[in-house]
């Protein structure tokens, strides 16, 4: 692979790079081996610790936890997106009476930790943990969606709106028929990336005692004994990460597809930077 940052490596540089690669790989392997040895000394790899995975009820509990995680994420995403759209329209409204308070509300929602919002709803309104998790996710992510879509609308050439108004559309119709479809398509990578964040944030449900995947791990470790904590945690973390990586891959795929299609006209709106901005 050549890069503008360094010269095409010659035979000597290639040799050095190969040696460095091997040494680096050995170092990483050594570190992994050390971790595995340390874990083995704790008896983590004894077969009896992993035998619990032959029990159907362990998988059933993990499955229930995963189901709760996905249910909270799906419901929150389905509510948050239209709500974000609405908040965005209010935020860029022509009337200052609507625009200014909306701006304050969005700043407030985006500036607060999601977990604090969940706790607020749980204790303040005495709801169930499920509603607290979903409502917390909806409020926060709707605000973020609103900001992403607003950034998309603002990145459009001014002529789009002017042309819409010039052919006699109302301000609202110009937004709905001309600006939003372009803005949403342009911001698709950021929107999908935010969906991944939403999915990741469901794990905060653990803190407000919602029975999601991580809570299932904790419950099983308490119930079966702490010697099973590591195996169960390891499997649950692998499930979580595998799901998130697949959704992230989907985001990258959508981005590639979008930029290929967009080659004819629309520019890409720095999805890299926006994506990185929302951990």
């Amino acid at each position, binding site marked *: 692979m050549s890069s*503008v940052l360094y010269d095409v490596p010659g035979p000597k540089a290639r040799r050095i790079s190969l040696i460095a690669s091997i040494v680096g790989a050995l170092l990483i392997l050594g570190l992994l081996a050390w971790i595995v040895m340390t874990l083995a000394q704790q008896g983590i790899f004894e077969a009896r610790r992993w035998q619990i995975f032959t029990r159907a009820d362990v998988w059933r509990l993990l499955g229930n936890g995963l189901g709760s995680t996905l249910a909270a994420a799906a419901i929150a995403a389905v509510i948050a997106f239209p709500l974000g759209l609405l908040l965005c329209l209010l935020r860029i409204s022509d009337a200052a009476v609507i625009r200014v308070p909306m701006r304050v509300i969005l700043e407030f929602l985006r500036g607060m930790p999601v977990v604090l919002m969940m706790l607020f709803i749980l204790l303040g309104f005495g709801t169930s943990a499920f509603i607290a998790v979903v409502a917390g996710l909806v409020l926060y992510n709707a605000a973020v969606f609103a900001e992403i879509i607003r950034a998309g609308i603002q990145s459009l050439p001014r002529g789009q709106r002017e042309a819409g108004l010039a052919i006699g559309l109302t301000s609202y119709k110009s937004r709905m028929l001309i600006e939003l479809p372009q803005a949403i398509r342009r911001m698709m990578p950021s929107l999908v990336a935010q969906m991944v964040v939403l999915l990741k944030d469901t794990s905060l449900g653990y803190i407000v005692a919602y029975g999601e995947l991580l809570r299932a791990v904790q419950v099983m470790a308490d119930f079966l004994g702490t010697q099973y*904590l590591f195996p169960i945690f390891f499997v649950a973390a692998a499930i979580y990460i595998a799901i998130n990586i697949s959704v992230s891959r989907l985001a990258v795929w959508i981005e590639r597809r979008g930029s290929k299609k967009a080659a004819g006209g629309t520019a890409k709106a*720095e999805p890299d930077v*926006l994506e990185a*901005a929302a951990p």
Partner: protein
Amino acid sequence: MDVIIENLPLYWNGFLRTLFLSAVSGIFALILGTLLAAARVSPVAALRGFSTVYVEVLRNTPLTIAFFFAAVVLPRIGVKFEQFEIAAIIALSTYTAAFIAEAVRSGVNSVPVGQAEAARSIGMKFGQVLSLIILPQALRTVIPPLINILIALVKNSSVAGAFFVLELFGYGRQMANANGDAVITVLLGTAFFYLLLTVPLGILANTVERKVAIAR
């Protein structure tokens, strides 16, 4: 209102602890993230591979999982911490470093190709090209996204409150349990202290963004 005034010392302690956690983790994350970004564009394949895998895995790990690993799993398998703050700092900085690495990498890509070519043509090595020419310009363009990541870090530090660290969220939860009749007031107070950190940072990010945009 009285609840907030009575508990002001607790809020203040929590606020300082949150500030401390965010600042220390932020510094570690910035250093680690920049190193990871440098590894990602380096000529050595093993470094590139390591950095890619690290970023990909950590970016897709829920923060709660990272915290659970650092604060619950590590002590059970023999890594003991004197204070849980250390576990929190490890979880926060390793997690945030992945996002910083991505931001810095996109900054490196945004530096015009001619800069690196010019540096190489006067005989600079990779280390010199990166540290003297590319990174100073790249970091400048990514300051706004970096500030946004730091804002997220301040908010993410609240997860530490659920893992045995008494910071703003931890105190908030404690006070909410102690003052059952004024839960909403107590938690609004907690939110206020978070906004005290995040809103000025957000305004700073916007200002810097505008300045950089004019300079280019």
